[in-house]
């Protein structure tokens, strides 16, 4: 369970659902707290819906309660990629990461950046479909900068949770991304990632150039 919102399993009109509720944070002043929670609740619901249009499976939204900053959404049964990647063979891992790359490519092609791409935010359903969840930090944008940051964060997330095979996973993701967006777009975004890393704070990458 993450820190930002609480997820509850519940039943809603006979359906098994997830309630995602953003609770007030005591450390934030109410004015800022309410602003952040309301914004993220509305925004997340909208973008989860938009992502579907882009061809990326996301839990279906049933109801949005802005006043209580709660989203009622479909419960997706399946396994988190965070665990799955640790349990599968190298080939399967490559396939999974390729698929993740395709999905990120579809999101970006449609003008959405996820904003928090980690393997904890991806669930594989029993039919093999990979669902993206937690669009709380997503944005609608076509900017190369935003796409670069999105993929850069994915890379960072892999390095912190799957550092033994982070590089292979990221390469597979880029391959998948390329199969959707084409080689030119990939070249641009990879250049962008390098530029982001070069801004000074990611010197290991800088030195390897």
């Amino acid at each position, binding site marked *: *369970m*993450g*820190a*930002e919102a609480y997820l509850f399993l519940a039943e809603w009109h006979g359906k098994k659902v997830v309630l995602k509720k953003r609770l007030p*944070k*005591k*450390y*934030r*002043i109410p*004015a*800022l707290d309410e*602003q*952040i929670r309301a914004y993220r609740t509305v925004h997340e619901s909208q973008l989860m819906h938009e992502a579907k249009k882009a061809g990326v499976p996301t839990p279906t939204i049933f109801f949005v309660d802005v006043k209580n900053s709660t989203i009622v959404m479909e419960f997706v049964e399946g396994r988190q990629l965070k665990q799955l990647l640790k349990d599968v063979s190298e080939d399967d891992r490559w396939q999974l990461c390729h698929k993740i790359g395709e999905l990120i490519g579809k999101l970006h092609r449609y003008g959405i950046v996820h*904003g*928090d*791409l*980690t393997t904890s935010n991806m669930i594989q359903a029993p039919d093999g479909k990979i669902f993206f969840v937690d669009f709380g*930090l997503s944005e609608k944008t076509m900017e190369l900068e935003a796409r670069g*940051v999105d993929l850069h*964060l994915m890379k*960072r*997330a892999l390095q*912190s949770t799957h*550092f033994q095979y982070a590089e292979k996973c990221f390469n597979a993701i880029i391959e998948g991304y390329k199969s959707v967006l084409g080689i030119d777009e990939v070249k641009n975004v990879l250049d962008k990632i390098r530029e*982001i890393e070069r*801004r*000074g*704070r*990611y*010197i*290991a990458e*800088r030195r390897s150039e």
Partner: protein
Amino acid sequence: MKHGKTGEGYCLGVESTADDFSVGIATFSGEILANVIDAYVPPEGGIHPREAAQHHAEVADKVIEEAFKTAGIKPKDLTVIAFSQGPGLGPCLRTGATVARALASYLHVPLVGVNHCIAHIEIGKLKTGAVDPVTLYVSGGNTIVAAFDAGRYRVFGETLDIALGNCLDVFAREAGLKQRPGEPFGAVVERFAKNGNVFVPLPYAVKGMDMSFSGLLTAAIKAFKKGEYRLEDLCYSLQETAFSMVVEVTERALAHTEKKEVLLTGGVAANKRLQEMVRSIAEEHNTRFCTVPSEYAVDNGAMIAWTGVLAFTHGIITPLEESFVRLRWRIEEVEVPWVK
């Protein structure tokens, strides 16, 4: 291994990454015998690296002498010399490194290059008794959320552009805030913020686990120049927005790692409002809140000396030819065999 007359080993640490030149002396059992800090105060504006380095060179012998005097030991008692090898400002780092190399060669003792950010974490652990914390390190030059995992400290979140302390400092200067003698700019912002109560919305930029403060700074300066808001309210809003960002990321790192301690350190750690916010998430996650005493939270030589002890006693020494400074040395590049 050379030891002092009591059988105890001593490490002298030189810190000079930015505006402070500091020398600390630590025993191998973790006692800090001296921690002398001499800060460079620019006549106006921010830190000019070359002028700060000039200051360091001028005060070095005096600071070293005072450290020995406070510690009550002689140079020949030293077992090892540690220095801050990076990250930091080039001219400042080079001055400290030169001092350390000279001392080590003269005394024929080994040299250990220490990562400045790791030193902040290690002295924090030593002084608060924290064992395995999530660390929020916020200063004028760094904004990092880190925790130990698999042999190294890993960065969970950090700034994508300027540091939090830098954001506060530059705003204070742009807004013409006046420091009282010895008062850092961050403390001036804190003083004004205390009398603010109207929240002015400013850009809140958390991207994944990383943060950005440059847009926030620009927006705050613009709001100031419009002249529609009280300076107190702007300081209040700037603090609330910036601190909420670092605290959000820290909380997420706590939730992710499930560690049982949170350590707040760096120059900005002195801010009472930030302490209150970090304490709040610590309580919510049943985590011990540890805040580092001010003289060990700011840049200081003691932390370099202590981290030098940890490294040296685990077989790490830095040969002279590898003692070049590393301006952008990231913490996850460093193995920390002393942490289990």
